[in-house]
């Protein structure tokens, strides 16, 4: 599976979570994020959720004030990624209870742990919410 990066961005365009599955320098990341966010945030609700940028295809979805953007290879199933974003949000909802920007900001590492359970090296590992959340809940209990 070719997920190249996962970004969460608020509606002001500030990055709230960034996970790359390929190497980019800090400067490249900043530039890429800026360009993508500018492109995606300018689009209206009616327009489709896919944007082509450089050699990426970006699949994005908006939840209240938070944008989820996933960069994929050209031959990836865009609709599946769209569904995957929804699964990610549902998983976070189950953990945080109606996830919002602040949850992700203040629990950045938890958000990363969840993503890590779901995606590894750009491939989807797990699609069951309870399987994803078990290790995280265990850790919460331990600490």
């Amino acid at each position, binding site marked *: 599976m070719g997920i190249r990066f996962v970004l969460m961005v608020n509606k002001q365009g500030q990055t709230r979570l960034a996970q790359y599955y390929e190497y980019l320098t800090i400067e490249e990341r900043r530039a890429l994020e800026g360009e993508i966010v500018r492109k995606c945030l300018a689009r209206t609700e*009616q327009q*489709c959720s896919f944007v082509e940028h450089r050699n990426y295809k970006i699949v994005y979805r908006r939840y209240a004030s938070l944008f989820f953007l996933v960069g994929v290879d050209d031959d990836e199933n865009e609709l*599946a990624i769209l569904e995957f974003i929804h699964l990610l949000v549902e998983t976070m909802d189950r953990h945080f209870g109606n996830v919002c920007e602040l949850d992700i900001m203040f629990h950045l590492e938890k958000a*990363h742990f969840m993503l890590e359970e779901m995606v590894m090296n750009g491939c989807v590992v797990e699609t*069951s919410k309870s399987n994803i959340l078990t290790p995280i809940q265990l850790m919460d209990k331990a600490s």
Partner: protein
Amino acid sequence: MNPFSMGTSLRDMIRAIRACKTAAEERAVVRKECASIRDAINENDPDYRHRNIAKLMFIHMLGYPTHFGQMECLKLIASPGFPEKRIGYLGLMLLLDERQEVLMLVTNSLKQDLNHTNQYIVGLALCALGNICSAEMARDLAPEVERLMQFRDPNIRKKAALCSIRIIKKVPDLAENFVNPAASLLREKHHGVLISGVQLCTELCKVNSDALEYFRKKCTEGVVKTLKDLANSPYAPEYDIAGITDPFLHIRLVKLLRVLGEGDADASDSMNDILAQVATKTESNKVAGNAILYECVQTIMSIEDNGGLRVLAINILGKFLSNRDNNIRYVALNMLMKAVIVDAQAVQRHRATILECVKDADASIRKRALDLVYVLVNESNVKPLTKELIDYLEVSDQDFKGDLTAKICSIVAKFSPEKIWYIDQMLKVLSEAGNFVKDETWHAFIVVISNASELQGYTVRALYKAIQTSTGQESFVRVAVWCIGEYGEMLVNNIGMLDIEDPITVTESDAVDVVETTIKCHSLDLTTKAMALVALLKLSSRFPSCSERIKEIIIQYKGNFVLELQQRSLEFNSIIAKHQNIRSALVERMPVLDEATFVGRRAGSLTDTASTPARPSVNLPNGVSKPSASPLVDLLDLSSDDAPAPSSSGSDILQDLLGVDLSPASQQSGAGHAPKSGTDALLDLLSIGSPTAQSSPSTIDMLSSSMNGKTPVSPLDDLSSLSLSARATSNAGAAPVMDLLDGFASNPPKHEDKGPEYPSITAHESSSLRMTFSFSKQPENPQTTVIQATFTNLSSNAYTDFVFQAAVPKFLQLHLEPASGNTLPASGNGSITQSMRVTNSQHGKKSLVMRLRIAYKVDGQAKLEEGQISNFPRGL
């Protein structure tokens, strides 16, 4: 404990950053935090280590450098507790990457953790390895991962499977070790393990053909059965999405089937039933169902032909295309693009719908649809499709017009059934969106017009009619002005009337009016105005009655601030005033340029420009023209002169033909100055010295002599070379250049007899810099030479921002690798090396030759050194 090393809590830091109103404030907060984290790192205080890494992750996410925290991640990973390891591994994955050498230090910790008794720690290590492992680590740790694929806990097995994907991508040789464990994963029931196993198998099939054969033989049946079970499975709350059990697994399985079925009739055959079932039974009212259908269609299109299934697939796409959801339509267009290759006829059926999508409000859909229309065009449907596209051009968004125009121009040029239709369409495009038409497109258009002698009258009249209403489009005006200049008498005398035309009455002064309006229009650029002046000169001979008036117009520009216009004005004025007897011969029609040659040339010049950064505009704002800003480009032009036909590249010929060649090289190379200007042109081409400086003396010289009328013949030859004989012009420039290149070939450098071991040379040496080249060649590929360039600083100041550039003639291909650095310490205390690969297509016939340019800064002052290397050892 040192109170300063404690710093703020993570929460406080995030609050502080959130409270920042401006980017500058944010930078200040981050700087302060980074400073205190560095302090804490220096004190080596383990208590706050994981908090510091958590902070660094946040800072990293905001886009600030955090390399100083990398070692801390390693320390956390090495610590015994789970929470420390957890954050340490996360930091490792976020802050480091596989290119960093620090990563090698972590191999040992990873190995220990992969063998840990706590399965969660094993999971952490697998996850980290799967995300960042390098080739060396893959070799070291592959046995551990292989063993873990049989681990009792499914969560470990799935991670080990995905980790293996990374390993076999890094080291494809290891693939065979993983084939058997991967095949056994396909029999798993646990969805996580299954989806990982399926992805591993897909990847194995891609990197190893033996693995593909194995899976095809042994596992196709199994995968088909798994998919069947999944599609028929009862409601499973944990994996259910919109009534479908685990669509992600569905998609991965269908994708694996695609890999297995591609190019193998038996395997394709065995999956027909299940694909048909999935394609017909899946609900298409939710995203999840459509995602499966989409994947299914892709697989049906890729596997070996089965007529019934293909029809089903195309029908699904048709349904997608008429869906109201833009996402679905986008996907359908995407898929039709691939379907065109297998079944163009079926896709043609949806042409009308696709054409509608070109006009969609959504840029993503428009772009996809336009690409699709472009491949759907053929001789039979080009007329209606072009009409639709041109109609849409009128109302489309500004930022879409560029794409659309380029595609329309390319379509009409490729498929036009007859010339008159091509001319009509080009006229429409030019008058509608002339500003978006590329130079080479309208150049090509003019070549076509000049070849179609029976349509020239029609074209110029049509242009004349159109320019009355459309004046803002630069390339349109250029074409119109050129045609009116060339074919003015056809315009006023209605020569070459076609049956379809209505006769129009245009007086000679009407025609001059149009050109005059153009030249006075402020929004048009220098090239257009220069073309208008040439047109006026031509009209003055074609319309003797307007000659006086034209002279008046031309004379107004003799004091123009733009040198180019001023010069033309003076020259043309003197032709009109003093040389009536030869004027008509001077301004005859342009010789017809062979279309085939032009197309060939153009292809050549396109590769030229592709190999250099975009060719800079020849027009400088002050009107001083230069061949180009970059001397490297000149050398490449030189290379095209090297070709058998002694003329410059296509666009140059055409510029000559149009009489708008602003390059001083061709203006100088008239017969009167032949010996001198030949050298000048050469110097220009090689750009030794400043081209402008050299062009002015000879121009002034030429002008003054023509003003005084002392030597009327030679300056007139000069002038006539401007417009009359394009070929002669480029000939004059080209011949000495060829001599020079021949010179390279025939003057063997001294290193000739030293055998196949090529000696190193000092390629460039100045008082401040020395560059040496050493050569190596692989015996099986004699055309390619690898050159290792070494730069040494001979001065006592260090150089920064050091950049080396090189250019070669067209028979060579040059590939520059990145340099080892961009700073060069003083007095030879170190060097920069850079390797490049040169492929000589004329190996054995011609020697290497190269121009170089070295830019660097000394104490912030930019320096530039240029030179030519012709002392390459022979036989490279």
